[in-house]
């Protein structure tokens, strides 16, 4: 039996996910004035889901691998691996169609405008079905996950900074997603003047923020810029977190020369001045957002690696790790099933803080004129404002909106990161009900025992593992024959 609440979540979040994905690739040539029929048709347009072939490939590989691993290791038959494999297969077909393999060529940036909409919808539904099947097969763990998530949300809700951050974030994400309905994309064309250069703001909609040095609507630029600024920040953070957490966990877990080499590498990357390096790389490799994402990603991981390593060093000394090693668990197994869940809260809170840094980095590079010349971001807007001498006019309407938006978004991520830090680390959490000292308070997040942080180290010794989302029975799955590998 699947927990009732998990079922509700799946039923709510699947359509929401689909809608978000659809809005990301919603056609840009359909402003609100084109009539309701055209707008609804836009949701089924060929541009929807029309990503470069690299993205379905990145989706297909882990889905297939994960599904195959589950299929090999499960004792009693459940639909979960088959659903995962199906989702992987559809993604693979999507990749084949987009990359042009059928026509005997291979291009990772190729796109397929014919069936992309269908592929995307099917993949979303299949992944939702996999989560449903997982919940039905492991009701206890699903229940625990639901319970923990609700507890975290309850604690998070009580943190005013976190809620302020979340509200700001939702506002800007909604603005970015709804950009096709909020501002006509045609107004971003360099020839689309709506008035004189540097005209002051008036009450008419597109004149709210006045005009730019070319007489273009600053409001339209501002709305569409949100997309690039947020997207570059999020993708760069993904790269940075994967690199940083991977290096950090390995450097913390292994002893000896390997760990030393990793730390020297991290130290070397930490002292490289990232801005000159990024300037050199962008100048050499060309200006587009993929390169910006890569550069921000590979220059911002050392901080994460150091933080994660420090935490992994602590986790490595916990007793259950030794127990795992004694019963013959492999290094990979221990890192993946014990260390990762235990350092996960830290990684998660850190990730949100890195987003803030990545967005600032993107803005900085774009401001220096290294952004994608074909798209607007808030940094690009400020670059044009600076270049055209808006500060000397002074054209405050051109300088204020992008700057304030950057400050608000960065502040929002900082607030959310600090709030998550407090929620996930019981030592930092302010106790609202128990009167005891913060670091002695009992841990309410885990009903079945196990520790999240250092405060319950002695407790964790007897319990297999203790990540928040991992649940305590992490190591021993009743479905797997013979217990831990």
């Amino acid at each position, binding site marked *: 039996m699947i927990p009732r609440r998990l079922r509700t979540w799946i039923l709510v979040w699947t359509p929401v996910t689909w809608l978000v994905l659809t809005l990301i690739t919603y056609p840009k040539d359909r402003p609100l004035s084109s009539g309701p029929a055209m707008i609804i048709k836009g949701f089924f347009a060929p541009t929807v889901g029309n990503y470069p072939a690299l993205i379905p490939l990145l989706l297909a590989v882990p889905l297939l691998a994960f599904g195959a691993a589950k299929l090999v290791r499960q004792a009693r038959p459940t639909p979960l691996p088959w659903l995962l494999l199906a989702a992987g297969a559809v993604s693979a077909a999507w990749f084949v169609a987009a990359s042009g393999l059928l026509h005997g060529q291979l291009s990772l940036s190729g796109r397929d405008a014919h069936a992309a909409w269908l592929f995307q919808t099917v993949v979303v539904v299949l992944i939702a079905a996999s989560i449903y099947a997982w919940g039905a097969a492991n009701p206890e763990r699903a229940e625990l996950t639901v319970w923990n998530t609700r507890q975290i949300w309850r604690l998070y809700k009580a943190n005013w900074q976190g809620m302020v951050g979340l509200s700001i974030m939702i506002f800007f994400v909604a603005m970015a997603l709804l950009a096709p309905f909020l501002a006509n994309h045609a107004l971003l064309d360099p020839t689309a003047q709506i008035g004189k250069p540097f005209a002051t703001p008036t009450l008419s909609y597109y004149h709210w923020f006045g005009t730019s040095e070319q007489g273009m609507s600053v409001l339209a630029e501002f709305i569409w810029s949100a997309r690039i600024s947020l997207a570059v920040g999020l993708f760069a953070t993904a790269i940075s977190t994967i690199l940083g957490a991977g290096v950090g966990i390995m450097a913390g877990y292994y002893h000896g020369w390997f760990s030393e080499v990793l730390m020297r590498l991290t*130290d070397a990357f930490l*002292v490289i001045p990232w801005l*000159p390096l990024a300037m*050199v790389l962008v100048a050499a490799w060309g200006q587009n957002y993929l390169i910006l994402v890569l550069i921000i990603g590979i220059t911002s991981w050392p901080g994460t690696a150091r933080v994660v390593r420090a935490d992994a060093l602590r986790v490595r000394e916990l007793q259950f790790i030794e127990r795992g090693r004694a019963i013959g668990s492999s290094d990979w197994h221990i890192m993946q099933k014990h260390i990762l869940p235990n350092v996960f809260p830290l990684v998660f809170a850190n990730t949100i803080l890195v987003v803030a840094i990545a967005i*600032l980095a993107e803005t900085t590079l774009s401001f220096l004129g290294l952004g994608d010349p074909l798209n607007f971001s808030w940094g690009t807007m400020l670059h044009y404002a600076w270049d055209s001498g808006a500060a*000397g006019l002074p054209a405050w309407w051109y*300088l204020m909106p992008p700057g304030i938006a950057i400050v608000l978004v960065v502040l929002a991520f900082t607030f959310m990161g600090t709030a998550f830090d407090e929620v996930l680390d019981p030592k930092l959490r302010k106790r609202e009900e128990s009167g005891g000292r913060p670091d002695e308070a009992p841990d309410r997040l885990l009903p079945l025992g196990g520790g999240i942080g250092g405060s319950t180290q002695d407790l964790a010794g007897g319990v297999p593992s203790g990540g928040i989302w991992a649940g305590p029975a992490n190591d021993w799955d009743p479905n797997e024959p013979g217990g831990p590998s």
Partner: protein
Amino acid sequence: MDKRRYFIRKVLNALLTIVLIASFNFVLFRILPGDPARLLVPKGRFSMDAMAKQRANFHLDKPMWEQFIFYWEDTVQLKFGDSFAQKRPVAQVVGERIWPTVILVGTGTLIATVVGLITGVFAGWRRNSKFDVLTTNTGMVMYSAPTFWICLIFIMIFATWLRWFPVGRMYDPGAVYTSWFSQFTALLHHLFLPAFTFAITYMGEYHLIVRSSLTGVMREDYVLTARAKGLSDSNVLWRHVAPNAMLPTVTLIMMNIGFVLSGAILTEAVFNWPGLGLLSYDSMVQRDYPVMQAVFLLGSIAVIVANLIADIMYYYLDPRVKA
């Protein structure tokens, strides 16, 4: 740890990192797409002769390992070739840009450190007081705001609207100063806005760090003991709590001083301040690779040296390291 061993280890570590970075610098400017000799000759007007000359200059006609050795020889002798844009040796171009940056970053860091430390200590001491809430939230905003945006806003307010300060440059173009005093005041007049904006970015950071580290220190038992002995508030704060809370801040400040170059690029570019930051921005715009290479190496070495100094200072500031 034994003092000599501690220092030797730190110095060796720094040297090793410098060697790593310099090698990375070698690799970086060779993985750039295209023929490096082509990159090293100004765009548009390259001839076969010039190409061959540059090739010989940078030993690009030799095998890779020999190039590596030559690279080290040249780097140690500070021979980075000629700048394309200015047609002068890179060492000379870079050398004359160092002082303006030191003046700007020095003044800025001084302001940021003094203000950030003092507000941080008071905010952490009375946590959740009105002063704390006000300064900490302001600090968060300062920390979140992009430097260049603050620069632009300050130019708009103080230079365009109020006309209190000139925009950019160290001196007015073409101005002749009769005495060193008038030259000095002109410099200060030009310096104020860039230094202040530079300081603002770091002020917020220092405030937040000092505040949080002070909060941590105040939970320590020895602070309770100090209070139990009946020491006055100011004695506990300035003799017992603050010195310990300063330790992480010292490291941070040294790290930031090391990052002068990347920190100052934006301020210098917006204010047209003729320092290393503006040089690296200009050389990027003009694709002046020899200058970029030298500036990048110099910037990395500055960070490593600053870290080394921080480690050595730590030894004297924190007796626990000696144990």
